[in-house]
């Protein structure tokens, strides 16, 4: 099972803060995006248009990063910490 986390503005778009997903074998970020498009349809355009960054186990991932059972995947909108 993998854990999927949504932060900041993405929580209201995905309509959840956290989700879990059972996978039979390792999958790529692209394959995960296909699955999420079905379970959280409003996320699809945001993922496809690359308006979010994706991390796996707290490290930034790319489209071909492989996700294994037990991994934590997070969808991260652009950061805005600190002050101008």
């Amino acid at each position, binding site marked *: 099972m993998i854990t999927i*986390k949504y*932060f*900041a*503005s993405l929580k209201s778009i995905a309509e959840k803060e956290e989700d879990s997903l059972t996978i039979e074998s390792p999958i790529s970020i692209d394959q995960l995006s296909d699955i999420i498009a079905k379970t959280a349809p409003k996320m699809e355009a945001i993922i496809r248009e690359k308006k979010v960054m994706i*991390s796996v186990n*707290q490290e930034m991932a790319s489209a071909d990063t492989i996700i294994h059972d037990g991994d934590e995947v*997070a969808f*991260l*909108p*652009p*950061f*805005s*910490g*600190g*002050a*101008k």
Partner: protein
Amino acid sequence: MSTTTDAKIRIQLEDFSVTDEIEAMKKVSRNIGGITTFLGTGRELSKGQTISELNFEHYPKMAEKKLEEIREKSIKDFGIIDMSIIHRIGPIDIGENIVLIVAAGEHRGETFKACEWAIAELKRTTPIWKRETTTTGEVWVQDTP
């Protein structure tokens, strides 16, 4: 309420004392000859809108990891003696402290450079998000100036 601990990287709800953090840094080494600080505070106006409250959210573990990477790279690349980075989360009123970077070195030159680089890198790489509450509602800030 403020807290000071020995930890050089902190993400916390509580306010901090800039003076206490500088004094703690001065105890790190007798070779410190210059300290540069950056303090980010809650601003009332944003894009013409009056902000009534700010709220910061972070990705636990990843945010701390990124701040530690920034600290270690600052020390290595700029040759400073030490750096501390503190970022608050949760609700923050206008005028309150948000983020503090303290860069200490033998001379001022490297501490200015390290401090400027560190705040820019924090905003670029650290998963912390700001939500502004204005008279027209709440908005997550997504631009990185």
